[in-house]
């Protein structure tokens, strides 16, 4: 075949594209279990850092992570009733095979869907930190849309279930150098000690700079200049998860003095 004929060009391009896509997809498929296993360790590392059981800035060995994780217990919340579900085993929701059968997806009313998720699971695992304290920290999973991608994170609340103890975002596809600043430790430190709800139990949390003297200061985290779209997404997803369709019913039960 003539090398410069259109037919040859199409043939060469098609064959190259086919072979390359086989190469790329088999690499992705074969390496995925390893990547997933690593992602699980990372997730546990973040949970341990949020637990307050270890110095959150320390560079922990795998052993230190696993041993600290022994004191972090997953507990299942039924978001429909807003209480711990004592009958189901949290472990069965971690395993994808059984989770598919057990889990129910609930559609989110459009006016409440600030995290732009459309669906959320009915049961969700939160992580309780076992300490001597009567009111242990609780770590809540949070996720929602940023600018380009779904952002996944954990937010740890102090025992009063109002004060933010710590926060991380462990997975996202925001632009490196812009949106990924939501992972900068210096920014995340600014969340510590901020509150979600005011005295009346209204959700006041928001992101964006505000005057120190303002009454809203206690509920405000600084924004990140140049990454406002991503950060607005983060504020919206926090407001969704701690709003009426998320954890708020669960949290308000404890204000009423309920046993954990």
């Amino acid at each position: 075949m003539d090398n410069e004929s259109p037919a040859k060009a199409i043939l060469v391009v098609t064959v190259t594209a086919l072979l390359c896509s086989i190469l790329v997809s088999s690499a992705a498929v074969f390496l995925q279990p390893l990547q997933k296993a690593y992602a699980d360790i990372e997730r546990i590392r973040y949970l341990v850092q949020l637990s307050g059981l270890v110095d959150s800035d320390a560079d922990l060995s795998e052993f230190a992570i696993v041993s600290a994780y022994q004191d972090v217990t997953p507990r299942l919340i039924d978001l429909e009733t807003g209480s711990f579900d004592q009958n189901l085993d949290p472990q069965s929701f971690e395993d994808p095979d059984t989770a598919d059968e057990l889990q129910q997806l609930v559609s989110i009313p459009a006016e409440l869907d600030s995290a732009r998720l459309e669906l959320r699971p009915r049961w969700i695992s939160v992580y309780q930190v076992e300490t001597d304290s009567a009111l242990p920290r609780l770590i809540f999973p949070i996720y929602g849309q940023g600018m380009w991608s779904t952002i996944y994170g954990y937010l740890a609340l102090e025992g009063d279930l109002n004060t933010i103890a710590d926060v991380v975002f462990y997975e996202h596809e925001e632009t490196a150098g812009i949106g990924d600043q939501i992972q900068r430790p210096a920014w995340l430190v600014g969340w510590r000690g901020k509150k979600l709800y005011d005295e009346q139990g209204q959700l006041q949390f928001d992101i964006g700079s505000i005057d120190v003297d303002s009454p809203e200061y206690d509920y405000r985290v600084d924004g990140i200049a140049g990454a406002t779209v991503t950060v607005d997404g983060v504020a919206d997803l926090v407001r969704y998860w701690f709003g009426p369709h998320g954890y708020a019913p669960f949290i308000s039960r404890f204000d009423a003095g309920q046993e954990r």
Partner: protein
Amino acid sequence: MKTRLRRALVTPLVDENPVTLHILGICSAVAITNSLYSALVMSAALTAVLCFSSVVISVIRRHLPHSVRIIVQVTVIASAVIVVDEMLQAFAPTTSQILSVFVGLIITNCIVLGRAEAFAAHNPPGVSLLDALGNGLGFSLILCTVATIRELFGSGGLLGREIFTSAAAGGWFEPVGLFLLPPSAFFIIGGIVWLIRSYKPQQREQAEFEIIATDSVRNR
């Protein structure tokens, strides 16, 4: 024949170094040379991609229609880069996080497409492999030199191990923060280019334009 093979491997190290002679691959050389470890991983990644793509393109060179050759070359290079990126994410996840987008950006590293287009597309696979290896090593040599200087003076250590005890820890060494910032890589690469060209004047470029003093300047 033997000398030709040796030439393909050795000349890109200094005499025709892709970074210092052709000034290619500067983006990653500036971005990830603040520690020797990331420079080593980056060097290995680029060399692997370069060798793979050069061999593949050389094998199919007689069947590459002129009109679509760049598309095919970029497809091969991009696939190799994605595979390397996936491997890093699976086997060296922490490193992969440090290098972040710069592994993906190997696709746009001019050294890779440059060698494919200038060498592999016209030469048999064996010598193309050596040429790719030589250029990969030439790039690595500069990258690691720059990274050694930056990490040593910027943080007083190498590969995370302390070499100079810092003043904060009771020693004498005051870390020079500038070395950790990207601009320092520019100065260091510039310095290396200058050193090489003083030693090998044949590498100096001819001025493209002559600067002619105009009347207005002359009359001033």
